Structures are given as structure tokens and as C-alpha cells.
């Protein structure tokens, strides 16, 4: 028994120590920092209580980042799930080359974000890009000079690209979920005269509810903390129209080209971000809670 206890400690120790010191402790410390006005590493910290949070409530740039993040979470999430479901069904309908199509759709997920933003810079390039060239080829003269990356359109241009990437992940997840549903269920439903749509909502969705739940939770966490793709999407100086909470935090803490170093303020944004993740996960656990069908 003693040997057992020693082994447990020895096995857990290295990872746990690193994780506590460099992950859990900084998380807790961040709450403390968020109560200070602090304008640079090595500078003095002034305790201002909830001052940073009160200021955030009136910071229009923060709310813009918040709204953008919510748009990614809800609009982006809805479209991603819808497209992923459609593609999964199209793949599962009995075609040849299932694995090939799945592999192609998942592909963007293994490519570096910076490489992907460069791909999309080419797709949206107004002079020689893929879409504008296509418009030119088709003779849509008014659309030919459309600037997808202008401040007005950049957010949705970015969102489309982000969905293109994330759909691949969800397709892989959904395919795994759908594959384990016994085929006889569909055959029986067909004999009873069920339409494909009925089969989808009464067989597919309930029987892969656990997989859908995992997908929704992972999407929510991803959407709330998304930083890399939108940040790099528009080059060195991302316009505020594309800010997410994560980007605004980084900009306030470290600045883009010129340093800003509003460290307490940035940390307060991070605390709100963590609270958002917790709230969303708690809500999802309530909403998504269903009795799992046993079969």
C-alpha cells in the first residue's frame, strides 16, 4: 500500500506541479491583478477595486469586441453546424470515397493559421483574387471591385473563412456519431413511411445527442477565446470591426504596433472572458441535458 501511495505521488507530481505553477496559479492571480490600475511591467500598481470593470461597462470598443465574439458564437455556430450536418449527410448517403472527402474537408484544420490567412488574403484580393477574378470572368461589373476586406465587410469575410475551417472538425465529429447509429433503425422507419427529414429529427439527432453536445461545448469554448485567425486576418493592424474579446485583451495588454500596457484593464477583460466561458458551459449543460437513448 505504501508503495502504491508513493507511486501515485511520483506519477502525478511533475505534471501537477508544472500545471499548478504555470496554469492554475496565474489564473487565480489574474483575478487579483484585475483590481489594479497598472501601466507597465515593473511599474507600481494602484488598487482601484472594481474600477477596471466599471470602465469596461462604458467602453464601446469592448462592447464591439463582445458583440463580435457573440456573432461568432451564435451566427458562426449556427452556420457551422448546419453546413457540417449537410456535408455529413451527403457523405453518409452511400457514396464512394467517404474517407477522401472527409480528409479533404478536414484539411484546413492541420494548416497553420497564418498560412490560412494568407490563402484568404489571396481569395479576397481585389486585384487578382479568386472571387473578384470570378466576378470579372462572369461579367459582374458592379461586383468586380467589391472590397471584401473593407472595414464594413471584413468581419463577415473573416467569419466565412473561419466557418470553412471549423466545418471540417465538426464533420469528423458528426460522422463518428452517425456511424454508430444502427442502419436497421432507418430501414424500419422507411418501411413505416418516414420522410428523410423525419428520420433526421427523430432518429439521427436524438441518437447522436451526446456527440452534438460535445460539438456545441467545444465550439463555444473555441468561439469565446478565438484570437489567432481574426487577429492575423487583416495584417498587422486589425481594424476594431474584427476585434474579438481575446484580441481586445491582447491589444490593451500589449498593443499592436505601439505598446499600450494597460495590464490591470487587460486582465479584467480576461476575467470576464473566463466568466463567460463558465456561464456558457453551465447553461449548455442545463440546456443540452437529455436522457440518452440506450440501444
Amino acid at each position, binding site marked *: 500500500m505504501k*508503495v502504491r501511495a508513493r*507511486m*501515485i505521488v511520483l*506519477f*502525478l507530481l511533475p*505534471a*501537477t506541479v*508544472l*500545471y499548478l505553477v*504555470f*496554469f492554475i496559479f496565474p*489564473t487565480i*492571480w*489574474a483575478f487579483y*491583478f484585475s483590481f489594479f490600475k497598472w501601466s507597465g*511591467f515593473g511599474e507600481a500598481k494602484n488598487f482601484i477595486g472594481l474600477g477596471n470593470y466599471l470602465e469596461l461597462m462604458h467602453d464601446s470598443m469592448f462592447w464591439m469586441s463582445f458583440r463580435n465574439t457573440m456573432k461568432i458564437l451564435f451566427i458562426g455556430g449556427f452556420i457551422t453546424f448546419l453546413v457540417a450536418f*449537410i456535408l455529413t449527410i*451527403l457523405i453518409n*448517403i452511400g*457514396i464512394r470515397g467517404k474517407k*477522401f*472527402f472527409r*480528409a479533404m*474537408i*478536414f*484539411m484546413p484544420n*492541420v*494548416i*497553420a*493559421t*497564418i*498560412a490560412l490567412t*494568407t490563402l484568404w488574403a*489571396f481569395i479576397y484580393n481585389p*486585384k*487578382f483574387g*479568386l472571387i473578384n477574378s470570378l466576378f470579372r470572368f462572369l461579367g459582374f461589373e458592379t461586383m468586380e471591385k467589391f472590397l471584401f476586406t473593407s472595414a464594413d465587410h471584413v468581419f463577415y469575410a473573416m467569419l466565412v473563412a473561419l466557418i470553412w475551417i471549423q466545418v471540417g*472538425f465538426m464533420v*469528423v*465529429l458528426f460522422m*463518428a456519431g452517425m456511424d454508430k447509429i444502427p442502419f436497421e433503425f432507418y430501414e424500419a422507419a422507411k418501411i413505416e413511411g418516414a420522410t428523410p427529414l423525419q428520420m433526421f429529427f427523430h432518429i439521427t439527432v436524438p441518437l447522436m445527442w451526446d*456527440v452534438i453536445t*460535445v460539438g456545441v461545448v467545444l465550439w463555444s*469554448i473555441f468561439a469565446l477565446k478565438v*484570437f*489567432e485567425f481574426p487577429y*492575423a486576418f487583416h*495584417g*498587422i493592424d486589425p481594424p476594431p470591426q474584427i476585434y474579438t474579446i481575446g484580441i481586445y*485583451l*491582447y491589444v490593451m495588454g500589449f498593443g499592436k504596433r505601439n505598446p499600450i500596457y494597460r*495590464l490591470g484593464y*487587460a*486582465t479584467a477583460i*480576461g*476575467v470576464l*472572458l*473566463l466568466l463567460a*466561458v463558465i456561464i456558457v*458551459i453551465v447553461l449548455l449543460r442545463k440546456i443540452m441535458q437529455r436522457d440518452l437513448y440506450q440501444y
Partner: protein
Amino acid sequence: MDIDQDYTKNIQISKKTLLIDKLKKWARLTPSYFILGIWSLFTAFTILWVTASSFKSNRQLFKETWKIPTELHFENYVKAWTTVKMGTYFINSTIVVLSALVIVLFISAPVAYILSRVKFKGNNLILTLFIAGIGIPVQLLYIPLFVIMTDLGINNTMFGLGLLYVVVSIPFTVFILTGFFGSIPKELEEAGVIDGCSDFQVYWKIMFPLATPGLITAAIFNFIWLWNEYQIALVFINNPDLRTLPLGLYALSNAMQYTGDWVGLMAGVVIIMVPTILLYVILSEKMIAGITMGSVK
């Protein structure tokens, strides 16, 4: 004679219905092939276009955007590798990512083993604490970590970055390996004990080798995300010589606004894409199994 005629007639009918069935099947499947084909083609095309462009000259890129390059400008790669230092960044990335990868597997596997197979007080609490890390936004850690790293004198160093890569990879690695160790039959462990193995030996000689498929999956996942990661590097690496490949490419794409060297950027993109795409082509089934393993029971 009659029977023969009937027979051929029947064959003809069944041939006919077979043909109709085939046509029906095609009508049902064609939209699938069409939509999936366009989606796949779009992805393949963008990647191939960047690769083709990386061999052009800048003039050619603008004048003959859609043509296959007539002559191969390998000097784009030479320039990217040496002048823009992508070679140095490639080596930096390889060192940091591979060492972080090995370490995170070696410290997470024992944790996953203990938490999934040994029952003790606090077992679930520790597992929850580890998995909670998946939900904690890494951005929240930037400023406290910056202070800690500076105090320890490892901020803006490769060692520091590698250490952070290990730490942020722990939650997911423990999560995926816990599922894997949990699925190994108990009998194998018991057989080891009966054969007189100590607890340590059971782990090293029986469980660790049995977990190899899980370890490989975790390794591929961590490799791909760390190889592509740039936000942590952006915060903690300031010295241009210490840049990782994504950070170098980010700097290159920003500098492009002034240099206008699109083909050089494309060469950089290809350099960063090749390792992960190669790995993916060889091991895509393993990767996909990894996503499924953690989330589908």
C-alpha cells in the same frame, strides 16, 4: 424452348430494373458528389495555387495569376530560407515543438494512467482540475505569466516558450490519454501483477506499450497545434532570432505591405504547410480517430 425464352425474358427484365435502380442511385448520389466535389476542389485549389505561385516571379504572379508557372523560380525559397531567416525559424520551431512534445507525453501519460486506473480519494477532483484547463482562456494567463516568466528570467527565451507549450498542452493530453488508458482491459494489468511485476513495472512494461496508439494520436495532435501556434509566441518572444515559424511568417506577411514580395510570402507559406500536410496525408486516419476517441463513446 419455352423455358429458355422465359428465362432470357426474365433476365432482360431484371437487367432493366437493375438499370433503373442504378439510375435512381445516381440521381440520389449526384448532388452529393457535386457539392462535396466543389468543396474539396476549392480547398485543394487554394493550396495548389499558393504552391504554384511560390515558384513564380512577382511579375508573373500579377500578369499570369491563373497560369501554371512556366519556369520555376527556386530562388524564392532560397531567399525565404536565408534572407528572411525562415531556415532559422524552422529550426527554432522544430526544437521547441519536438522537445515540448516529448516532455508533455512523458509527464501526462503517468497522470492519465493513475487517474484512470487507480482509485483514491481526490481522484476525480484532480482529473476535473486538469480538464478544466481546456476551458480556461489562455489570454487570461498572459499577464500573470509574463510576470512569473520575467521573475524567473526565462521570458523571451526558447526554454520559456517550450515550458509554456508543455503546460498548455497538459489538459488536452491528459484528457485524451485518460480515455485511452481507461479502455485497456483490466485483465492485462492483473496478469502482470500475478507474474510478479511491481507497480512500476506494470506501468512501464505493460501499460505504457499498450497505450502506444493513444500516445501517437496525442503526439500528432500536439505536434500540429504547437507547430501552428502563434499567439503564445507572439506574447512571449520578442527577439527576432528566437521566432518560431508561424511568428516568422506573421512578421513576413506584415513586412509584405512594404516589400510587395508576394511570391516570397507564398514560399514561406509552403515551408510552414509541408510538415503538417505530409503528416496528415500519412496519418490522417489516426488523427481523425483521435477526435473521435475523446468525444464519442
